[in-house]
Structure formats: structure tokens, C-alpha cells
């Protein structure tokens, strides 16, 4: 199973740049970049913080998919 996220889509929906989201959540832009590219799995706390800023629930923002499934 593989963890994917929909941060980029929902960030764009709210017309936020990566820098905007990073500052609201309290991390660096590079962290948001790494998250959106799937290079980094956030801590539970950070996942909740991002979800709150984007007005989502955590399980709407992150989901597990089978390893071979393409998004």
C-alpha cells in the first residue's frame, strides 16, 4: 500500500501558493513541495495542521492506495 495526498489540488482550489500554505502551517516551502511530490510522509500533527488550513478532514486529504495503482 502507498500513501498519497491531494494537497496540491486543494491548495490550488483555495488559490494558495506553496509559500502561503507553508507559512500558515508553520513549515518551510520545501516541506510542502516534498509533501506534494510524495517524497515525504508528514507527522500526524502536520497532517492535521494542513487539513485544518485547507478546510478538509485528514482522511479526505490523505489516502492509501495499492502500490501498483496510478493516480
Amino acid at each position, binding site marked *: 500500500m502507498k500513501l498519497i495526498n491531494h494537497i496540491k489540488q486543494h491548495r490550488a482550489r483555495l488559490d494558495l501558493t506553496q509559500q502561503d500554505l507553508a507559512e*500558515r502551517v508553520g*513549515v*518551510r516551502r*520545501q*516541506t510542502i513541495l516534498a*509533501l506534494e511530490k510524495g*517524497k515525504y510522509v508528514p*507527522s500526524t500533527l*502536520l497532517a492535521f495542521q494542513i487539513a485544518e488550513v485547507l478546510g478538509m478532514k485528514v482522511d479526505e486529504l490523505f489516502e492509501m492506495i495499492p502500490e501498483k495503482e496510478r493516480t
Partner: protein
Amino acid sequence: MNTVVRRLPSADWIALGIGFIGLAVGRFFPPVMGLLALAVFGPPLLREAGLLKDADEFTQKVVYRASFHTLLVMALLLFLDRIFSPWVGVPESLTLTTAFQGFSLEFLRRIMVMVFLLSYLIQYWGPAHGVSRILLGFAVLTGLEMVNYTSYWNAEIPAVYKLVPVGLTVAIFVLAWSARRFPRTTGLILLVFLALHAVASYSMMESDLVVEGYIQWSLLALYLQTSMVLAITGISLVRSGNIYD
């Protein structure tokens, strides 16, 4: 929508400014160079002591992993030195772990800094962007070194030989560009360069590594640093594939 809050410059930017001051003024007044140590070690020490709470979990993870990689490489070097030096007949006085060999500490420092920087930059920016920036840095350094190498330019040698450093600098710039667009291909090229470097350096190392009974640590460090840069950047790019980050 909430107003975006603009923050004060981070501790790292302040440290960078202090570091530059240390480097610039330290040339004329050496004790000021100590500001460089403050810049490098200040923020991490404050963070670990809990006095600086600007922790970004991704950056922290990158720092910890880079530190672990550095520990692994240094431990491996020291272990290999202890195990193999007596076996291949290196006198006790010439091994890394001999206290009086002050130059070996400089060797260890150079390798340690190189491993940490490579690991940190590649993790932080991802393989393609990280390697591209590393190569760009080397291209700039090579170019600056070339400009300063006046004795080479003034030497009475065929002009074509004088073009070799120019070609090298241009090649590194090209590799820095291609690392983002063709990561795997660039990685393979870097590994080929690693092989060529190993072959080219072997004969030189044989004759120049030990001079008058002393290991030329700076030469050994240069050889290892170049090999490590080529190996780590090459392998990172090959593993990342041709879908650049």
C-alpha cells in the same frame, strides 16, 4: 481568507549573514573567522537545547539523516583504516587513527563536511535539483579556480592544453543543466566519469600518496572527495529515474 503573515528572517538566514561577515572580515582579521563557527553550529545547538523553536520536521529529518550518513562514512573509514592498514603494511605512524598525524584530522574534517553536505542537499532538494545545484556549485568553483590559475595560463604549453580546464568547467555546467532534464542519463555519465577518475588517479596515487614517509592527506582527501561527489550524485540520479523532481 487569513492574511498571510510575513515572518522575520529565519535563524538560518541570520546565521548565513554572520557566516559571510566572518569569511569576509576574517581574511584581514583572522579571529573574526570564529563567526563562521557560530554561523554553522549556532542554530543547531540552540535547536537541540530547545532554545530555538523554529523546527520544521522535514528539515529536521533531513539533518538527522545527513548526520547519520556522515557518522556511517566516518566510522567505516576509521574501521577500514584500523583493519586494513596493518594488513597492507602501512606503518602505525601513518594510519588515520594515529594521534600525532595532525593532518589526518583535516582529512577527516573534509570528508565529514563533504558527506554531510551531499546528503543534506540531495535529500532537501531531491536528487535532480539537488545534484544540479551541487554540480553548479562545482562549476562555479572550478571556473573561479581556473581564473586564478595564472601560472597555468602563462606557462609555455600548447594552447590546446590550456583549453582543458575551460572544457572541464563547461562540461560541469552542462551536466548541472542536464541533471534536471535527463537525470538517469546524467547519472550514468557521472558514474562513467567516476570510473575514468579512478583509473586516472590510480597511477598518480601510487607515486604521490606517500612522500618521505608521510601520507599526503590533502591529496587523499581530494581523491576521495572527487570520487564521493561523482559516486553519490551519479547513483542518486540513476536511482531517481528520468522523471525529474
